[in-house]
């Protein structure tokens, strides 16, 4: 009996929701032909907490702690998106020092978030060492956050009207120390990974995301830039004070997993550059403007988007003049980015699917909200 006569059939496999490489609780229903993936259907919603509905029953300042939970790897950026939107809605002017502090924190959190991505992505591919190194650097950033606002993950740092706490005395020397050593640490990751033959084989040409597909599915963030599109809200539609800083937008060429890796590593350097400029130019003065608990923005609606580590995060708030929003829609990058997985993941080995999923940097609480 030859191989051709053997009866073969496609096999349906549930990958997740308790699979370690799905980074949370995402379930992928996969049709397999041998080792090859033929069809992918992501099932989301395991982590749904109806945050948008909760927002309708909370006062505006009370909702800030909930934004932390939308994206637990980059809470500062989620905070930032919300407060920028709310301030736009209520026309709140905030002190300049607060803007600078916000940018410092948001960029530090972008670094921390990318480091988590690097750690988990490489451990998905079987490289354990970068995981340890990346978490070591992230620890420094979390220490900085902890001494400023007292928490390591759910910061509740930015408030409507400024930031909750000023930075303590010991913050600046520690931050400068971190900025001094950080570039050499990125070089370490590059030495470990960038030209490593195993890493190259696992990522080069894997999960190619063409520009057009990225447009069609409104992919954003580093995944989009990896495909060679120069689109970053910080440059295209500067919010906060990002127009004051000098930084580049790294882009890839092919749109494969390796390009997305390269873009994120480059973004680590760019973010460190922004933090350095911001801490140099940090003005004195007030760091917050008091906004009462029963703050009432005028009637109307606002749409505001920012560049979070995973892409565009946007808030659409409709106010009816009461202390609680009438409706709040949250657009998160991971939800849109996950939609391209069934397109770019097919016709790959199942091990490559893990690499592709990792390279898109999906975070599940952001998908489900």
């Amino acid at each position, binding site marked *: 009996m030859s191989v051709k006569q053997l009866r073969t059939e496609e096999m349906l496999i549930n990958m997740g929701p308790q699979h370690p490489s799905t980074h949370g609780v995402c379930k992928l229903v996969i049709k397999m032909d041998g080792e090859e993936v033929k069809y992918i259907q992501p099932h989301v919603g395991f982590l749904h907490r109806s945050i948008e509905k909760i927002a309708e029953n909370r006062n505006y300042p009370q909702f800030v702690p909930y934004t932390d939970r939308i994206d637990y790897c980059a809470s500062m950026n989620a905070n930032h998106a919300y407060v920028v939107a709310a301030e736009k809605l209520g026309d709140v002017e905030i002190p300049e020092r607060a803007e600078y502090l916000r940018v410092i924190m948001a960029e530090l959190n972008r670094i921390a978030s990318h480091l988590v991505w690097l750690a988990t992505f490489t451990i998905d591919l079987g490289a354990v060492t970068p995981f340890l190194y990346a978490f070591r650097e992230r620890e420094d950033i979390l220490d900085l956050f902890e001494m400023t606002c007292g928490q390591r993950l759910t910061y509740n740092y930015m408030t409507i009207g400024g930031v909750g706490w000023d930075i303590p005395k010991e913050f600046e020397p520690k931050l400068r120390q971190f900025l001094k050593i950080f570039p050499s640490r990125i070089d370490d990751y590059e030495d470990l990974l960038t030209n490593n*033959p195993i890493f190259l084989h696992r990522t080069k040409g894997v999960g190619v995301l063409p520009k057009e597909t990225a447009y069609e599915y409104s992919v954003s963030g580093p995944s989009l830039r990896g495909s060679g599109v120069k689109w970053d809200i910080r440059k295209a539609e500067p919010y906060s004070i990002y127009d004051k800083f000098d930084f580049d937008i790294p882009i890839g060429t092919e749109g494969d997993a390796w390009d997305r890796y390269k873009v994120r590593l480059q973004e680590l350097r760019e973010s460190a550059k922004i933090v350095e400029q911001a801490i140099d130019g940090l003005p004195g003065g007030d760091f917050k403007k008091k906004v009462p608990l029963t703050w009432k923005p005028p009637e109307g609606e606002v749409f505001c988007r920012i560049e979070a580590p995973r892409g565009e995060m946007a808030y659409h708030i409709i106010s009816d003049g009461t202390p609680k929003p009438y409706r709040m829609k949250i657009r998160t990058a991971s939800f849109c980015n996950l939609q391209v997985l069934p397109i770019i993941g097919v016709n790959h080995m199942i091990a490559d699917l893990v690499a592709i999923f990792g390279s898109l940097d999906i975070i599940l609480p952001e998908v489900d909200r």
Partner: protein
Amino acid sequence: MGLVKETTSGIYNLLLGLWVTFKHLFRKPVTLQYPDERWEMPERSRGTIVLLSDPETGELNCTACMLCAKACPVAAITIERKKDPETKKNYPTLFTLDTTVCCYCGLCEQACNFDAIKLTGKYEFSVSDKSELLYEMDFLQEIGRDVKYVKKKKAAKKAKKAAPKKDTGEKSAEKPAAKTAEEKKEDSNEEDKAKDKTSGEPKEKGPEDKTE
């Protein structure tokens, strides 16, 4: 030719990676052996919530003004209060904190005007029974006894002590710098409203009736 080039570059880059890990052999380890060693928690650390007492008299600073209960986004705080007929001061008869829902956001501490509630760097409060996570007033006071704090809101405190007539009027009169007119109104309104209640049902839990 390509194969040779690929092989040499592969070997070189593998060795480069190994060199990076080799260098780390001589670095100081960053791991802390937890139960034996502990990090010093930063001053602002937002861990377990405690109720602060006056270091001199040993009594709670809390005046049961309900501001923390109102500020809490998850309604974790329940307060009941009574009025002392002699001093005309309010004091809490019941103060429970449901740590199963508490999200440690610190909004209660920010709302408090009397240095009464604080998030501290204390940790390790695991229990084997969920019901023990409902902290009562005595327990919260006990774990807060050794917590040092700076009296930030001295003015408000002094006003409260000097004339124990009406919390609201005094407070807003004594704090002209920090508060805007609108806020004063807000605060006194809230406190007046809270006064009418005897039991603290902090905030409406059910969904609002909205026209949707």
